[in-house]
């Protein structure tokens, strides 16, 4: 994952400055402007000048120097590994005392020190006030834990099979529901195991396979999709079944036919369903009413393997993706075999860089970063595949440059 890593030396060296930008996804997902690092650097220069002018060093200079060195040298391993603010927590805190200690080192009047302290507190306080971390937008919160229980689930205990194996097919896994079920129930997330596990029957996958073949009742546990339910029913419609089936088939599983899903309603899940705004009040009411989780009986059944042979169009897209994987392997980690459909052609997801490569039907290759509105043209298929093609991997739209230079 290179989400918060700098792409150039310039970006890496200027990270303390970039951290002051009121943009999200600079060093953490949320907008968390932090002036303290750049202020500490400025105050350090002032303190250095001030101390050099004094006849003797102030007694408190050594611990301040130690903290300054510790924090700013720690940028090196931090920026080399993740650059994620959550993983820099000790120094995101200790930078505060460092700023005040540097003010304290200045050979100036007490009133001047008080003024500077208030100015620093005011500036950082203003940044915090303008970007309150608890606002509902640009937040980490998916659902709110208000009253007990933390995840309200409407189900009768006797309707739950305590011996069942619950299979989840996506992430987030919603494993927070698991402790609300009988402790004897078992939980498996099959999306964790990729084709390399299933094809090679890896040692890690063997016990999963054994559990799925154990004959115990198998249940698919997933977030319900009220908009993809049959009319007047809680059962998944054909569209939902079509979406679910490939995930199950990859592990020789299938929905029992006819589908007989339970709906466990959860009022906490209702707000997550409101993305479509053009629905009628009745349709919205239905979404609220039927938000929650499906529990659907599934069974082990070796399904006929679909041919892995790619069409000529898919092979063309694959060649484009693999060319970019050679040119920018840090962004597009090689090793994937398949290509997915995209409404304009084919795509390949690169979670390591939060991005997609999209090969359109009209012969163009695009880069699409998760945080941009529009894709970026890389070139025509002909150009990309030509032997002399090159691309500057530090120029990807949306993540290239300092926060204020980034395009959307």
């Amino acid at each position, binding site marked *: 994952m290179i989400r918060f890593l700098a792409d150039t030396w310039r970006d890496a060296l200027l990270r303390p400055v970039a951290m002051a930008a009121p943009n999200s996804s600079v060093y953490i997902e949320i907008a968390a402007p932090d002036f303290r690092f750049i202020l500490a650097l400025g105050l350090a220069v002032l303190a250095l000048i001030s101390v050099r002018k004094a006849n003797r060093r102030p007694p408190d200079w050594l611990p301040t120097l130690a903290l300054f060195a510790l924090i700013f040298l720690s940028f090196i391993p931090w920026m080399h590994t993740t650059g994620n603010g959550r993983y820099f927590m000790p120094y*995101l805190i200790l930078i*505060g005392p460092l700023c005040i200690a540097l003010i304290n080192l200045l050979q100036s009047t007490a009133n001047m020190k008080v003024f500077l302290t208030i100015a*620093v507190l005011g500036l950082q306080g203003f940044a915090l006030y303008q970007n309150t971390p608890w606002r509902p937008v640009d937040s980490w*919160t998916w659902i709110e834990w208000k009253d007990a229980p933390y995840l309200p689930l409407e189900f009768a205990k006797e309707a739950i099979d305590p011996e069942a194996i619950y299979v989840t097919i996506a992430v987030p896994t919603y494993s927070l529901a698991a*402790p609300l079920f009988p402790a004897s129930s078992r939980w498996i997330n099959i999306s964790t195991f990729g084709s390399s596990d299933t094809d090679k029957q890896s040692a890690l996958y063997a016990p999963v396979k054994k559990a799925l073949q154990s004959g115990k009742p198998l249940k698919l546990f997933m977030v319900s999709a009220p908009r993809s339910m049959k009319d007047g029913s809680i059962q998944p419609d054909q569209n939902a079944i079509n979406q679910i089936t490939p995930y199950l088939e990859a592990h020789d599983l299938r929905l029992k036919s006819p589908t007989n899903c339970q709906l466990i309603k959860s009022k906490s899940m209702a707000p997550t369903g409101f993305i479509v705004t053009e629905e009628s009040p009745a349709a919205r009411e239905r979404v609220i009413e039927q938000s929650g989780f499906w529990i659907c009986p599934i069974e082990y059944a070796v399904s006929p393997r679909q041919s892995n042979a790619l069409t000529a169009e898919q092979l063309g897209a694959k060649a484009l993706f693999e060319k970019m994987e050679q040119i920018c392997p840090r962004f597009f980690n090689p090793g994937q075999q398949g290509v997915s459909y995209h409404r304009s052609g084919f795509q390949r997801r690169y979670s390591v860089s939060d991005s997609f490569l999209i090969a359109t039907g009209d012969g163009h290759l695009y880069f699409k970063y998760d945080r941009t509105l529009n894709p970026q043209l890389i070139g025509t298929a002909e150009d990309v595949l030509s032997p002399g093609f090159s691309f500057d991997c530090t120029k990807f739209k949306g993540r290239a440059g300092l926060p204020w230079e980034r395009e959307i």
Partner: protein
Amino acid sequence: MTSHAKGAKPTEAMRLLERLELPFVLIVFWLIFISVPLYLGHLGLSWDALNHHIYLGWVADAPRFDKDYAAASNQAYQYPYLYWPVYKLAISGFSGQAAGVVLATLHLITVPPVWMVAKVLIPAQGMHAMAMRVAAVLLAFMSAVPLKMLESTGNDLLAAAPFLWAVALAFQAIAPPAPVPHSRITRTAVIAGLLVGLAVSFKFSHGPLAVLFPLLFVFCDGPWRARLGWVTLSAFAVALGFVITYGYWGYLLWLQFENPIYPFYDGYFQLWRNGSGLQP
């Protein structure tokens, strides 16, 4: 403003005020911390919470290796014990607001080490120095990242507590002007190292920061050979602290996957499992 740094004797009232400084800071921060969930009326459940925070607390209560497989995807195998409080609060029927107040109170453990560092950086006596120290602690927490933790089930702030305590202890050894006995610095280097090892167990992400931490002892007062010894000792203590605190969980992962830090670096351990040895 009065400063007693230059030898003037502090008054009785001033001494009393200084004794009350840390309790005052703790009370103020407790009120600030708990005001977040009280004001919001809920705790936010993020992607991570839906995926693994609560589940890991459940696992901390009783391992489920015999039942589940990757129930929380690969995050199911993170060090689970620091998630136990939020799980216990959740499963015990606390409201989000009440759980938030309890967790906010637990987060108070991060405040004293910050104040201790501020006290070393600004050691003077008197109202002015006291105000500067309070401002230093205030500015420490004026970041959206730690404040966000007070509204969520994330434990990054709590996991940083041993690291902050380690820095605070190390600064006691650096603190001028009175010479610190070498035996005390040695003891501090070991204890601080052990605490950093604990922080690494809590979150592997502290690992890169832990690499530089022992260098703090370069700033202690003593001959260079002794300083080098303290740095080495502290680095050793970091490793030891990690082994001691992570050992049991690592052992469980080893039994399950033959990789004590699964799923990290599993490619290397795969070679081990295949019988071709652990290779770079």
